[in-house]
């Protein structure tokens, strides 16, 4: 075979040079939609990270109305440890609870002067294994504890967990719907711009077919064209997203999400970056394939 790939590339580049506006339109479409998708991914990615950190603190506290005999207490702790998803059970005695409280008051600790150290109830602090640190895990544990009947009041950060999980779910759903819609629209637009370039070159395509070009030979330059446009769009959106991230997101969104100090907003991890460019490539290639499917029937 002769130097066929450079030939195809030359044809693709020439096509793009001959209809620069169509080319720019396709690249811009890919860029804009990938940028929006990437922002969404950044947000979801970071919110997930925060959730993961917050949920480390998820635990259930069981208050003990009366402190049972040490042997009974030990037995109870052992039983609770056997419940599915339980990582650790810590016994907090009345005195320990009092000490913690005093520690938290800091310089105002003298307020507790003369207060009975037995005034706070003893409790069991039950933490969950990482996989169970979610609403379902907490609810299952609470149900199991309630079923025992020998524990008093149960406290758990259930409410915010429910709300937060709902929020995260909504965010993911929105991302999925919006992203899906965007990508579909982009595919459609890219496909149509390539169809326009096909239309511009329809004489050429007809003549190619007449002099015996195979369908693959006719199509390949256009697929390359689509791939290049998608790639360009992917790279442009990447640099765009990174720029906006550096300028606004890293600090701006950071102060919004992490009120009490903490880490900054993270950029997309490398695998996602590759994925984004891959998505651009996918859009370009399948956009042109879609255009060619309807056009080249010779």
């Amino acid at each position, binding site marked *: *075979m*002769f*130097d*066929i790939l450079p*030939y195809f590339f030359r044809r693709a580049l020439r096509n793009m040079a*001959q209809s620069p506006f169509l080319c720019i339109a396709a690249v811009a479409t890919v860029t804009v939609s990938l940028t929006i998708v990437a922002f969404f991914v950044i947000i979801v990615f970071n919110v997930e990270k925060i959730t993961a950190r917050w949920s480390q603190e998820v635990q259930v506290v069981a208050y003990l109305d009366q402190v049972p005999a040490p042997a009974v207490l030990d037995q109870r702790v052992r039983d609770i440890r056997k419940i599915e998803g339980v990582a650790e059970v810590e016994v907090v005695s009345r005195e320990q609870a009092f000490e913690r409280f005093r520690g938290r008051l800091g310089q105002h600790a003298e307020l507790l002067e003369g207060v009975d150290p037995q005034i706070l109830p003893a409790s069991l602090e039950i933490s969950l294994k990482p996989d169970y640190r979610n609403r379902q895990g907490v609810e299952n544990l609470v149900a199991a504890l309630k079923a025992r009947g020998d524990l008093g009041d149960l406290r758990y950060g259930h409410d915010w967990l429910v709300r937060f999980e709902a929020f995260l779910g909504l965010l993911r759903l929105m991302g999925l719907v919006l992203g899906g819609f965007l990508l579909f629209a982009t595919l459609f637009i890219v496909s149509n711009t390539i169809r326009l370039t096909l239309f511009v070159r329809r*004489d*050429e395509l*007809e*003549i*190619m*077919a*007449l*002099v*015996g*070009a*195979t*369908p693959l*030979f006719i199509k390949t330059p256009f697929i390359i064209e689509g791939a290049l446009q998608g790639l360009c769009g992917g790279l442009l959106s990447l640099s765009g997203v990174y720029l906006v991230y550096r300028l606004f997101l890293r600090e701006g969104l950071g102060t919004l999400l992490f009120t009490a100090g903490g880490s900054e907003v993270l950029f997309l991890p490398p695998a996602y970056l590759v994925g984004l460019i891959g998505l651009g490539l996918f859009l370009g290639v399948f956009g042109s394939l879609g255009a060619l499917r309807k056009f080249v029937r*010779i």
Partner: protein
Amino acid sequence: MIQLHNVSKAYQKDSSALDQISLKIEKGEFVYLTGASGAGKSTLLKLLYGGERPNRGQILLDGRNITRMGPRQLPLVRRRLGIVFQDFKLISTRTVFENVAFALEVQGRKRFEISKKVYAALKNVGLEHKLNRRPLELSGGEQQRVAVARALVVDPIVLLADEPTGNLDPETTLELMDLFKSANARGSTVVMATHDRELIRRFPRRVITLDAGRVVEDRHV
């Protein structure tokens, strides 16, 4: 070289463009296809290069049945044909050289081979000095010679021409006929659709006359 068996073609259901055509064209023949407008000349040529498919019947080209050929084999058959149209069908954004080279590029020929053959083909039609012009900078006759060069550059076994002289004045028509005759003399089978009775009288060859999709006369010379 070319054989048709009971070939029928209808673009719409009720009207048929070709009706049960059977004919045989030998290797090296020069054949005029004539008949009134709408008789089916262009349709017959389209069937021969696979631009349309017959509804019925079989077409053999160089011993191969092209009737049911798939999109992968058909291009390989077309590479051995030369096709010339009334409206030239040149790519206006390409130079004369590139237009002719196109026919070899799609076959994946080597570059130096392409240059050599294209130059020879342009020289054959007397346009080697204009190979960097664009088609629209040329006269109609010159454009048609470029199209002929593109058809002949592949050394076609069959040269199909659909009213190639339709847009040309008598003078250039004669030039073009010389090119067709010499291609025929070099071994290409030629099938030319034409209205031009004067042309047929001047260069008498076998004449197949169509009327309403049927062969009404087949006059061998």
